[in-house]
């Protein structure tokens, strides 16, 4: 007969708790060594020193010895310097891309979730397809269409308009590129939210005298608010760190985003590594709220699934 103590150590299936801990251990150790420690390395580099001869960043692992110099330089660059211009541009591009994503994505998600009827499966497959087409391939496809002798210029010269240098540093090209790249990730959670709405709720609204329009604005829209929010968070996080979209679709300093600056600091100039690390930290702080929202959302969904 097991004592109470033994019963507490043993879960209902009969395997001891330590067995499950041991199963989780390799994955957790991996995440600590290759996710938590690397994250600390960003801090150690940002607050570290510059090697006097080799001009490369040297990490400072001890927080008591941290040098706030480069962090301060990046910070003041953000408020009044060139970095500030880039940060504001990034914010504007992301907001514009988000607004367009909602305008295009909502009707699409709404149609597929609620009005597609027999074709729902087909439409769902079509809006899912871009998920499994590589982002860089999708950008390459647009570079093909938009380059100087591409289809777009051929088409507009055919109707008598002047050809344009689409890839020569236009903010509009970059913003549309961001929308094109990320909108599938906005549509999907919104689709899921709209799909969950019980049709009977809408029928009840109509029975109680609401017009279709009122039913939409007072029932469907409020019920899909969570989906819009989740979709926006999902696309904003990668957009704020994007550097490849502006590089591929413009390449001009006039359309540089924060991600481009980090890429340049870290990948292209060794001596600026500390500034790259500091800017990465600031980017993290800027999107921390979005990350937390997303994190608690996943945790909540998981808890619900568990019960």
């Amino acid at each position, binding site marked *: 007969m097991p004592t109470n103590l033994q019963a507490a150590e043993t879960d209902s299936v009969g395997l001891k708790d330590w067995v499950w801990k041991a199963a989780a251990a*390799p*994955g957790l150790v*991996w995440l600590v060594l290759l996710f938590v420690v690397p994250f600390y*390395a960003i801090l150690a580099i940002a607050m570290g020193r510059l090697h006097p001869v080799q001009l490369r960043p040297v990490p400072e692992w001890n927080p008591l010895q941290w040098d706030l110099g480069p962090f301060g330089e990046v910070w003041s660059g953000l408020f009044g310097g060139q970095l500030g211009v880039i940060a504001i541009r990034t914010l504007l591009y992301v907001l514009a891309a988000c607004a367009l994503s909602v305008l295009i994505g909502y009707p699409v998600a709404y149609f597929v979730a609620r009005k*597609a009827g027999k074709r729902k499966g087909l439409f769902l497959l079509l809006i899912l397809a871009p998920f499994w087409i590589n982002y860089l391939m999708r950008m*390459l496809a647009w570079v093909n269409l938009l380059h100087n002798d591409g289809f777009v210029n051929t088409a507009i010269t055919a109707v008598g308009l002047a050809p344009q240098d689409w890839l020569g540093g236009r903010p509009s090209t970059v913003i549309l590129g961001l929308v094109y790249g990320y909108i599938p990730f906005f549509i999907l*959670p919104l689709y899921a939210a709209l799909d969950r709405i019980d049709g009977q709720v809408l029928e009840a609204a109509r029975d109680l005298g609401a017009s279709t329009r009122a039913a939409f604005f007072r029932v469907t829209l409020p019920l899909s608010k969570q989906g819009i929010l989740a979709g926006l968070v999902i696309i904003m996080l990668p957009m704020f760190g994007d550097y490849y979209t502006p590089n591929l679709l413009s390449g001009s300093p006039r359309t540089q985003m924060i991600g481009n600056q980090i890429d340049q600091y870290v990948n292209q100039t060794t001596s600026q590594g500390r500034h790259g690390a500091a800017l990465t930290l600031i980017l993290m702080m800027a999107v921390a709220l979005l990350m937390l929202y997303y*994190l608690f959302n*996943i945790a909540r*969904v998981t808890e619900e699934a568990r019960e």
Partner: protein
Amino acid sequence: MSLRSAATNPWGSPRLLRLVTIAYVVWSIVPVLVAIQFSFNAGRSRTVWQGFSLRWYLTDAGSVARDESLRLALFQSVRLAFLTMLVATPLGVALALGLARWRGRGARAAGFLMLVPLITPEIVMGVALFMVFANLYDFVPFGTWAQFLGHVTFSISFVVIIVRGRLFAIGRDYEEAAMDLGASPAQAVRRVLLPLLAPAIFASLAIVFAISIDDFVISQFLVAGADTVTIPVRLYSGARLAPRPSLNALATLMLVITMAAITVAGLVMRRYNRREGAGGESAVRALTRLDF
């Protein structure tokens, strides 16, 4: 439906909504189809169709088969995806089992730690791994090794999410029944639970393969020289500087490989779901859930 009601009430008019949706689908997919079409162009142009040919895949000096940089990129992507799949899947399955069954104070914190890589912007993870391999783990060379470690790191959480969904769906009844019938706890896990998890494990293998092939940022931050360039990194460097139809051919091959992996995952899940009847969720649903 009258024009007036369509104008005042856009949500009541499926015709207008259908038009918007079809326009969106065309806009989102046709550019890619055009890119695929021109990978088969007999000429050098990516705009003027000059007849069908496999020249950019096989025979031209700049084709995928004969241009070393393209061939290496294909090889590197497949090799990385394969290695990542083999390591991330068992780690993730074990982690999912551990997190689902172990009920301590640590379990909650561990569950959060597992989720953080999913929501971290890739550029942050790229910078972090770059910094740590350059300064602390300097015994790990940049290139394949660093890329492999990075890919496994972002893949583990995906496996946990997929497997955990299945674990919750199965519940504990089968294991408990096995033990009531005399199986030891270890036997119950090995002979009852793991077979029940098989579809989720297969799906994880395929999805890890696909997301590893798909990755650009981590691969680029950890690249070392031409022989560790992956397909997306090669597309990035070539798209503006040296665009040729062979680049489209390389992208098309990547698409085919990814689609094959996803199809396998979908078919495996569908087969198991059919066998289990209405209780199972559709493959599409399971895949879409990944983003939550």
